[in-house]
């Protein structure tokens, strides 16, 4: 195979002589080959790939190394040369489909931009034909109509297809895909990736895929590169690296993949929380004299959580799982139905509410916005104790220190502020804040989805340990089936505001009844341990997707 791109000894620093973000990185991409760069946030994987296009953000400068692409050294090439290559020979797909298309430009014009610039030989009519063909190829139902449509009229998955279409129109030799499907749903993710593979095969385009999602890289790439703190720690054929990882960090990454936990006996105690025929309507938009029709987000939800049980709610985006969690937490008022806590109906006005409020706590998804930036960690955690009047200040401080110790931070963190902490540490603070009052019920809304793989494993382990120690029940909302498989006792599958299937974890994962559950489970492959610290790629249902 002839080499298309060859990066050797590349180093990037913050300003001349500054801190090294990327250190002595070398890799090659052959023509038509799919290569994955894997690493956690801060590993420099994105900057290394962006350097190929000369798109590193301003403070970063290249201190050494070369980037050879089709006989040209991109590292020293002038701006005009780079401009000719960008788009035409090297395309790029970004992570966030919601912001990578210009919202004030129709799809047709946006797709035409690249063609008009790089393919001067084509007439406007010929360009239009190509665009329509390509839109049809990426699965847009009515390409003619899409030409004059605006980006906001399409879903995230559709936009990512269009982004792919705009890049592949120019038939580049290399496609750089930076976390191309991270922002998408599991099921949509698989569709978009399959499409990307098919399109790049058609044109013999090589792909450099940057991702933190190991199963995905394992599934689609031929070779992979593992980066840690700016350095390449291991590189090689994907199959070999998965089966026999050499570097300790690679082994750690693979070991961090969620595994199914031991099944626990089903609880027969009276339910702690039960939800009956719950429905939520989002009010329609207010017009001058009327309202547009309201939209029902949840339809007749029945749900039971037993003491000490972890119930996971899974589903794609828009399935209503977050709305359900927020309603049970008391942040939204149910339009119909009721919530019972220890057999008593909970409403904001009645006596049970106070007891419920003290016993039901929540961990939010984004540790960057769920902590008030102006309060110290000690204040944040201590705030949970405000509602307990018969606790002296000294006792409160002691409890805060204890809880900080429990979540693995220690009392030294109390005077610190959230911005000084990493994402994983912040999520530990959020957990400490939730459990400081010893609640009997915790709602966790995607608590680990914003975290890196290894940090995610640590936080999940912490969560399991705390749950075993304090015995709280948990409603665990997640789109990540691997995580759910590790923590849940029971699983509830939601789609479009309804519960489609519910059952014990092993039943749901091994023998789902509903087609949607199968589809969800088969969207993402898993990596199962296979001895020698290695893993093997496994689909849950080979034919589940059909």
């Amino acid at each position: 195979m002839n080499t298309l791109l060859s990066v050797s000894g590349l180093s990037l620093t913050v300003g001349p002589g500054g801190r090294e973000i990327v250190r002595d990185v070398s890799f090659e991409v052959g023509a038509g080959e799919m290569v994955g760069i894997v690493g956690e946030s801060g590993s420099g994987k994105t900057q290394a790939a962006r350097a190929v296009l000369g798109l590193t953000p301003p403070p970063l400068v290249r201190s050494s190394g070369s980037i050879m692409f089709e006989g040209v050294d991109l590292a020293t090439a002038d701006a005009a040369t780079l401009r000719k290559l960008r788009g035409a020979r090297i395309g790029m797909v970004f992570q966030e489909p919601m912001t990578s298309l210009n919202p004030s430009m129709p799809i047709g014009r946006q797709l035409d931009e690249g063609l008009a610039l790089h393919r001067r030989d084509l007439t406007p009519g010929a360009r239009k034909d190509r665009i329509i063909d390509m839109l049809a190829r990426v699965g847009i139902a009515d390409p003619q109509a899409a030409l004059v449509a605006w980006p906001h009229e399409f879903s995230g998955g559709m936009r990512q297809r269009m982004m792919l279409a705009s890049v592949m129109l120019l038939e580049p030799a290399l496609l750089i895909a930076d976390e191309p499907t991270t922002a998408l749903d599991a099921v949509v993710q698989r569709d978009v990736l399959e499409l990307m593979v098919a399109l790049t095969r058609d044109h013999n385009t090589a792909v450099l895929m940057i991702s933190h999602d190991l199963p995905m890289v394992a599934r689609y790439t031929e070779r992979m590169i593992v980066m840690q703190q700016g350095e390449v720690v291991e590189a090689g054929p994907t199959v070999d690296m998965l089966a026999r990882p050499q570097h300790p960090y690679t082994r750690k990454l693979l070991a961090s993949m969620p595994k199914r936990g031991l099944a626990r006996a089903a609880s027969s105690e009276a339910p702690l929380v039960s939800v009956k025929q719950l429905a939520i309507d989002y009010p329609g938009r207010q017009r001058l004299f009327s309202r547009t029709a309201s939209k029902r987000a949840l339809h007749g939800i029945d749900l039971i959580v037993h003491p000490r049980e972890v119930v996971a709610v899974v589903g794609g985006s828009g399935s209503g799982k977050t709305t359900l969690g927020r309603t049970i937490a008391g942040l939204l008022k149910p339009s119909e139905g009721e919530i019972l806590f220890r057999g008593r109906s909970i409403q904001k006005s009645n006596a049970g509410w106070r007891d419920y409020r003290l016993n039901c706590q929540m961990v939010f998804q984004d540790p960057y916005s769920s902590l008030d930036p102006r309060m110290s960690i000690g204040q944040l955690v201590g705030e949970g104790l405000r509602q307990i009047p018969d606790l002296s200040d000294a006792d409160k401080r002691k409890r805060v220190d204890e809880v900080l110790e429990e979540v693995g931070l220690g009392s030294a963190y109390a005077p610190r502020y959230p911005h000084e902490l990493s994402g994983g540490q912040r999520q530990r603070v959020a957990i400490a804040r939730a459990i400081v009052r010893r609640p009997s019920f915790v709602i966790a809304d995607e608590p680990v989805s914003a975290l890196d793989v290894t940090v995610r494993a640590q936080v999940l382990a912490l969560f399991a340990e705390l749950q075993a120690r304090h015995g709280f029940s948990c409603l665990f909302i997640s789109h990540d089936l691997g995580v759910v498989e590790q923590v849940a006792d029971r699983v509830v599958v939601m789609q479009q505001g309804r519960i489609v299937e519910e059952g014990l974890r092993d039943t749901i994962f091994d023998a789902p009844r509903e087609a949607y559950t199968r589809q969800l489970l088969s969207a993402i492959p898993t990596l199962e341990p296979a001895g020698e610290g290695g893993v093997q790629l496994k689909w849950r249902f080979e034919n589940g997707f059909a």
Partner: protein
Amino acid sequence: MNTPAMNTPTPASAATRKRRRLAPNALLGMLIVGLVVLAALIGTFWTPFDPLKINFAMRLKGPGGPYLLGTDEFGRDELSRLMLGASSSVWISLLTVSFSVIVGTAIGVLTGFVRGWTDRIIMAFNNALLAFPGLLLALGLLAVVGANKYGIILALGLAYTPSVTRIVRGTVLSLREKEFIESSRVLGNSELYTMFRHVLPNCVAPLTVLATSMFGWVILAESALSFLGLGVPPPAPTWGNMLASARPFMAQATYLSIFPGLCIALTLLGINLLGDAVRDRLDPRMRGAR
């Protein structure tokens, strides 16, 4: 950034705990504001000459000699008038800005947090007020309350309140969508507590920026009002009316416009520098930053 090394908890380092030294900008700001306040304080009790005494023999004397900064068209000592003017200018702008910030913040937080009909009615009224230029609004109000020092404060204060309300409301609306506000609710905190403990402190940054620039507007608006004969009534000096009365002598006695103008410009510079320093100091994210 999540390097694995950062995930192993380490005790808080002493460096991040230590109070940061004052930045040179903050020091300069404090120095200027301090000087102005000192001049205003002294000016209230003592000035080199009587700032109101008319002496036609000493008309339009240039700087130097016994009159350090010269005399005006009535032979009054410029330095004495500047010192006395400092006290009224600083006092007027301070009270005006405090008035608009307090009233505007209260209304803004209320409408942003309560929303619904309260918000709609108050904001409709607020936007109607915003449609008038601040100065025009102040003129109208002055006609009602009468042209004196406290009338000016009330008129300018009310005229600038709508812009504060708008900015605070916008900040509150974006803050209330943040998860830490919901997190406070889940803990069982009352709405009032959440508002004071979590919403209000996070409005400080935009408010400081607004308040410091408002200082400038107010000093200028006061001089504009004086120019129209609606400011602090003569012969009492303010920087604004001194500047206004210096205009006809721009050619013969340039210093008469330069000194009050310089006072206004320097004060604004000082207040802006100080405002930035205060904002950074109140934000824990900026502490320990380089």
